[in-house]
């Protein structure tokens, strides 16, 4: 594999390889010298058509720990806003000799468009495309779940994970549904019916409208951010009502299994989908997700650019 566009592109063994490699990377990150020389002389471009400081710096830290040269390209004017087109931007980066392009874009499919065009020959890593996918987020989520709940085993068999909130517009949810089920977890999507995609019942998941009945069953609960713009589009009556039915709060915390963990891809709307007590509780692994994000992105860059000749293959160490 040359690109990472979607978690549907990953086989079981590729996914496990990435998680195992990330574990090695974490060990290095914890050591006195946080850096590997692997990607010295390689150029990695962070091509961000959409603001996302946290994802950008996570990729940047990952690339730098592998000694790559990193160029941050904040393409403010995407073709949506009549700026430079994706094609011209990509060709410019190609002309500058980018070995990999990490792309974040508000348009679903932008990463795949870039990878399947002849505009660039480098690897393309999807850092979030519209409401489609965000594969490295799912990988870091899987990594975090495995680290906490599956010490000594490689996959997520036997675990139940609830993804709660705006599934319809969530690239994190789409990537996680594929990846977590690939790794053997049972996924339950919890949302009001308005925020579930048409046909979600055909996905390999369970669906519930009732958070309270789901919480006692889960080993991990993943709260999704509710975007401000959903408020004015009739998806739910009021923020208060949403919070009442789908927000994670202290009362709901009590319904969860003792060792179940709380996750959130960030940035959080404290008080809306999650209260401060939950976000800051001992069960919360939200900050750890951020830490693990760097390790997982190091693993992806390593495997795509320096691992097996054909990208993510067997780990060659």
């Amino acid at each position, binding site marked *: 594999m040359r690109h990472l566009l979607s978690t549907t592109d990953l086989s079981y063994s590729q996914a496990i390889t990435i998680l195992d490699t990330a574990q090695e990377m974490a060990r290095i990150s914890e050591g006195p010298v946080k850096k590997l020389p692997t990607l010295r002389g390689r150029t990695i471009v962070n091509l961000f058509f959409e603001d996302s400081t946290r994802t950008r710096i996570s990729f940047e830290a990952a690339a730098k720990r592998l000694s790559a040269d990193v160029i941050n390209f904040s393409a403010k004017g995407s073709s949506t806003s009549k700026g430079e087109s994706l094609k011209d931007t990509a060709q410019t980066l190609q002309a500058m000799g980018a070995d990999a392009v990490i792309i974040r874009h508000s348009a679903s499919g932008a990463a795949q468009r870039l990878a399947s065009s002849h505009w660039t020959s480098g690897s393309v890593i999807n850092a979030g*495309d519209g409401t*489609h996918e965000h594969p490295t987020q799912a990988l870091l989520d899987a990594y975090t779940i495995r680290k906490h709940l599956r010490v000594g085993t490689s996959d997520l068999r036997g675990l139940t994970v609830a993804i709660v909130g705006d599934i319809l517009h969530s690239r994190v949810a789409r990537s996680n549904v594929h990846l977590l089920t690939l790794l053997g977890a049972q996924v339950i999507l919890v949302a009001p019916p308005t925020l579930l995609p048409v046909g979600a019942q055909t996905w390999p998941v369970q669906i519930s409208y009732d958070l309270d009945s789901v919480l006692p069953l889960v080993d991990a609960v993943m709260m999704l951010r509710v975007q401000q713009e959903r408020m004015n589009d009739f998806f739910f009556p009021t923020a208060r009502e949403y919070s009442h039915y789908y927000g994670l709060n202290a009362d709901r915390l009590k319904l969860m299994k003792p060792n179940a963990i709380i996750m959130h891809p960030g940035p959080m709307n404290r008080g809306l989908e999650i209260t401060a007590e939950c976000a800051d509780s001992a069960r919360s692994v939200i900050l750890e997700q951020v830490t693990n994000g760097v390790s997982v992105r190091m693993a992806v860059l390593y495997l795509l650019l320096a691992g097996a000749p054909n990208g993510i293959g067997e780990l060659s160490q």
Partner: protein
Amino acid sequence: MTNYLLDGGVLPEGKKAQVLVADGKIAAIDSVVSHPGAASARRIDVSGCIILPGLVDLHTHMREPGREDSETVESGSRAAAKGGFTAVSAMANTFPVADTAGVVEQVYALGQASGLCDVFPIGAVTQGLAGHALAELGAMADSKARVRVFSDDGNCVFDPIVMRRALEYVKKFNGVIAQHAQDPQLSKDGQMNEGLISSQLGLKGWPSVAEESIIARDVLLADHVQSRVHICHVTTAGGVDIIRWAKARGIQVSAEVTPHHLLLTDDLAMSYDPIYKVNPPLRTQKDVMALREGLADGTIDIVATDHAPHSAESKECEWQVAAFGMLGLETALSIVQATMIDTALMTWSDLVVRMSTAPAQIGGYSDHGQSLRVGSSAHLAIVNPNQSWKVDRDLVLSRSRNTPYHGMDLPGSVVATFFRGVPTVLDSQLVRTSNDN
């Protein structure tokens, strides 16, 4: 004017026949040798070919005036001739909008000047296609362009009272409102068919119900005011059902389907290649089968291309910023042969009705869609059904290249087209006509 003797072909119903074309008319069929014009006629060997009346398209985007970078009346007419068409209908969503007598007369004159086919302008229903105030429908009807078909295509005439008034008003001159059935609220920001694929791809859905609810409303309105309504590009199984129901009730509704909706499905969007982005969107296989069935049984009256040329840059981009639309004129006949005739759902005679007779009737194009008999205007499309061809976007005659069929082998080649007795295409090549500069 040269006379032509078409030798060796068959008529749509399968009967072998020689056809003599003279003075813009069909001068003789079969008894050609005895005709005085036969001796001087140029003989064209059309062995193995079917002689059809020239095709008539009720839904064409010629882009002129305003977007001459993607198509002109001249280039669109070339594409039409190549596809076997002798009449096309230029949609009103140009810049400026064809909502006045002046613009429709300009478009009509451009078509006359190109001389490759008749270009019948469609007038806008509302001023600026904005959906609020009626355009001067009477003035367009009385103009030199003699407009009878009105459409805000690209936009739905959404306001029910505007639609009602338009349906009533055009009765005065036997006009018809061609509705682009799309509830703009239900399909807001819609990128593709709403269903399993859109959910997977994270592209905003344009659901079937947004089309069907407008079709249902408008057939009821047409019934109420006893006028006729034409439904543009039906794409859903439910839409076919509603139209079938309306026809059974005696409501004056006609409907069209595009070639691409007879063949292509929404899973093509999985490539995120905007070449497959079209409005209304590609639907599911179930819808495709219902559309074919509806076209075969006559619920859907006609095939119309919705030929929608777009410049390269409006397709070489992210799906959600790309333009809607695909080319259709040069491939329409082949796609209909592939989906309807080679599947035994329709005969060539049925195809003549769906692609020539009925569209000419709906549009009031009396010189077109005539049956092949002595005295009829010599608008002809001659097709070799056994000669397949490979679509090459670099060889299209349209000024744009946004064909979704690039690289596909399609059955049926248009070997020759005659427009008012003059060949516009011979040996599958465009013939330069006297009107060319």
